């Protein structure tokens, strides 16, 4: 019997330069299609989205930070699990990962309403890739259809691959180096780290204990497994904002 994991991530906001490599790697890994013509920031699909936030001061005192927001993998009273009428969302007790089963999803979007982090996305259109580009799809992840909700699952396909590799080698535990989500692998600044929060020797678990570490909307008690950190006071303060700043008045 293997020990239960509690996979989580730590994000150093002071290192994030907002390049977007994590968003691109996520889309490539999880077969997320390019935006249709009518898509915008509210109707697009980005399992991880880097928000540009600021301290609300006028130029030249204004300062900017980049905050990657993905499914926070709530560890307690997971809101989306509670509201799903189809049992299309569950928490894997073996990994702590909040999973989404699009084939069960009805598209009612209760989970999107319930999610306090705006980290769930609805497929408004059938997935379409330019002619020929479907050859570049990842065979480990099935594309989702129009009318279902999807979200980050810590690259579950990679976890399965790591499990299979460990099983083939006759091991009961996966090698941590074999299971790294695409966004973490892609981050050129090293701002993202991933691992088992139950393993006190893991970097991610140590990051979570740092004094400058915080979680988004900590006061609502959902026990997210994404731990942010920043030495800037104003950045830590926005963690308790009900909605990430920068959602309105987009420049993109």
């Amino acid at each position, binding site marked *: 019997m293997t020990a239960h994991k509690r996979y989580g991530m730590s994000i150093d906001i002071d290192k994030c330069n907002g390049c977007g490599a994590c968003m*691109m790697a996520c889309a490539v890994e999880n077969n997320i299609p390019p935006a249709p013509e009518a898509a915008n920031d509210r109707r697009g699909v980005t399992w991880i989205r880097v928000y540009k936030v600021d301290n609300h001061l006028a130029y030249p005192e204004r300062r900017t930070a980049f905050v990657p927001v993905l499914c926070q993998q709530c560890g307690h009273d997971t809101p989306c699990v509670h509201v799903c009428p189809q049992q299309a969302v569950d928490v894997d007790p073996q990994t702590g990962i909040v999973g989404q089963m699009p084939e069960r999803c009805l598209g009612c979007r209760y989970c999107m309403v319930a999610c306090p982090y705006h980290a769930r996305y609805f497929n408004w259109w059938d997935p379409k890739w330019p002619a020929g580009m479907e050859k570049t799809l990842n065979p480990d992840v099935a594309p989702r259809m129009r009318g279902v909700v999807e979200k980050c699952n810590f690259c579950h396909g990679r976890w399965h691959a790591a499990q299979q590799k460990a099983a083939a080698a006759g091991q009961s535990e996966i090698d941590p180096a074999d299971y790294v989500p695409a966004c973490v692998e892609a981050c050129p600044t090293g701002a993202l780290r991933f691992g088992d929060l139950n393993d006190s020797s893991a970097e991610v678990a140590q990051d979570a204990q740092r004094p400058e570490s915080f979680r988004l909307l900590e006061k609502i008690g959902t026990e997210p497994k994404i731990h942010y950190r920043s030495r800037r006071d104003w950045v830590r303060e926005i963690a308790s904002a009900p909605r990430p700043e920068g959602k309105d008045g987009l420049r993109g």
Partner: protein
Amino acid sequence: MTTTRRNLLKFVGGGAAGALLTPAPWRLITDTALWSENWPGIPRPARGEIHARFTHCTLCPAGCAVRARCVNGQPVSLAGVKPHPISHGALCPWGIAGHHLPYHPARVRQGPVKEALAAVARAISQRGAGERIAVLDLRPGRTVSWTNRRAMAAMDNGLYLAPLQPAYSIDLTEAQTVVSFGAPLFDGWGTPGNVFAARANFRLVQIEPVETRTAALADVWLPIRPGTEAAMAAALAGETTIAEAARVTGVKEEAIGAVKEAIASGPAVVLAEDPASPLMSLNAKFHALGRTVVARREAPIPEAWKRAAPVNEMAAAPDGAIRVLLIDESLPGGYVPWQDIQPKLAANAVVVVFSSSSEGYARHAQYVLPAPVYPEAAEDIGPAIDTVPAVFRIAAPLIAPVVPVVNPGELIARIAGLPQTDPLRERADAIHKAGRGTLLNYADGKSTPVKQVSADDFWKTLNQGGCWMDDSGKKAAPPGFSRSVTSPAPHDDLPLTVVAAEARRGGLESPLMSKLERESNLRMTANRVALSPADARSNGIENGGHCVLETACGRLSVVAMIDAGVPAGVVEVAGGPRMADLCGASQRARVVRA
């Protein structure tokens, strides 16, 4: 008991209501969803043998090492190569999705090759005395650049043109303080992995009017008044007083004084947004030459190539003299604004562009020939600005071209009558013959001295995932820099100073870049500008309103965004060749309502 119509309806109605209390109908809905998941309109990813292949990214001069995950030979994802000593396993967002480019819907898929060759031959035979045939190479420093130069040397009155390539490299590992005049250090400058690996050891002072990605992560950001960089440079060099610089630039005296102290405390380097900027001459003042700013080194070349044509900037070409212009735009690189090129063309000039995109010079050329895109072509990448030792790395093709393409180097060599050879192999042999340096094999992460590798194995490893790096050797100081710094002249009709929000990249980008541009607010799309609330208000411009951006070079329809992070008097513009044509030769602009 008789069965009445009423009883029958009661039974059916009761049965239907009762069925709703059972799991059956709900299960049916789930099953329907399961069925609909397999609609034929949703593509099914191909399955097959999975293996890794290595190459190098050619989308910018960094040339990061790439590990491609392939299914049946088709790349399905790209990642960095962790043990690489320069790129350190990092890729930028463009590089991560580079394998999508061959399938881009806007790709140039065909072109009039025969007609273009005939027009070029006709123009060459009919050209008058003093008229030139020229190649404009947007990515100088490659092996194919040497082919282009050799071709121009072989032609009567041939001229090789390229954007100015710095004669220096920056050694960030030696710097304790980096003073950057708008250089996008964390957003496209040099090799991303190399910059972030060195980051912990230097203090960054970013001097620019707008808080860019680099300024946001800098240790100190000095929000300078646009166009006053020369005054700041003079103060840092001790040529004017700090008080005078503070008055001109709007930066506090204490902040300028602190930067001067930081520079004096240890090895420093000055960077500028334009690598050819006279601001780079401050490095001589700070004793950085030969230490953090060193002479650029290139991989050895065959002896015969040394008779190639010299590299010229566009400004060196005589006006009205170019009868045939061949533009190699196959790789994104430095962009020369069309306003700088046009005066150099003869009245009846023939312009041929090799490109995969119809957005760049294709808008101005008579003939557009489809060029291969990454990762279709075998190329090499010259050393990046932050690469100190000479390197040689080949971008081995991961797939065959998906449309009929023309290889620019081969065609230009054919026009010039050069023998058809494999220049990459010739150069690899020259490097092997020199016997210096080591060969890093990405598959096993081992470095081997070149002397211990046969020429064939050297070539094979370079093509299957490897990189040659020269011995570190003694650092040499680069040639001197020009010292005159000019500020954009004020213009009454054009009150705004242009600042680039994004690197002016050319060429195609993955359709997935919509995630960063339209599906989030992370990057500015090509037709956007950002204004301060004050400037927007004074011009009656609303957020998201359609406007016209005007410079001395022309006009462009844009969408204006109001951003309190943009100072008054500045317009922040997106990237792309249209913006480069409009703003590249003119740093003053105005924005008016459409």
